[in-house]
């Protein structure tokens, strides 16, 4: 349970930034 919580919160901390980085690439490509 503890590992799940740590894993989940680590994802909450890291994934939005990673996804946002890819999202920015998509938007840039659409611009081009």
């Amino acid at each position: 349970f503890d590992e799940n919580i740590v894993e989940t919160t680590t994802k909450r901390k890291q994934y939005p930034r990673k996804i946002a980085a890819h999202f920015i690439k998509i938007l840039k490509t659409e611009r081009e």
Partner: protein
Amino acid sequence: VRVEAAPRLLMFDKIVKTFLEKLLASGSFQRFAHCYQSFYNLQPEVTASVHEKFLSLLQTSIQDEIDQVKEEGNLEVLFTILDRIVEESKDKKEPAWRPSGIPEEDLRSWLVPYILNQKQYLRKHHREMQEENAKLMRSVLAGREKIMELQQQIQLRSQAWQAIQKDKQQLILALGNP
């Protein structure tokens, strides 16, 4: 410890210290001697020194453990950061946002600023393109007019030459009659 005022690190140290003091105080020599009554009667000094060693070893072991936990957990830095964040939020009374547990929902807020930025860019780009196309349209219209004009000129010139053609026919006729 007045819990709401003291910075976290201070609170943490104070609470652990208080815990340790009370724990050691509860292991009093009376109690220890009482539990080892027969040995205490035989060797009171040894009993006292064993008791003293017991307490000091317990204290240093627990203190070392606490220091290790603080170091491994980077607690000093994190407590200081958290104190600052809490301080900055002290005017906010409403419960703050918390993860909803639905990733795509929580992700939306992350993406909104980028989409708004894209929207602003597209709006600006669209306006620029419209202005540019308006200019081009003006050039196209001017070009159409110019071509119309040239076509009219050519039409006039070719009509003139056709008229000359007619005149020439008449001349030939006129010349042709003996």
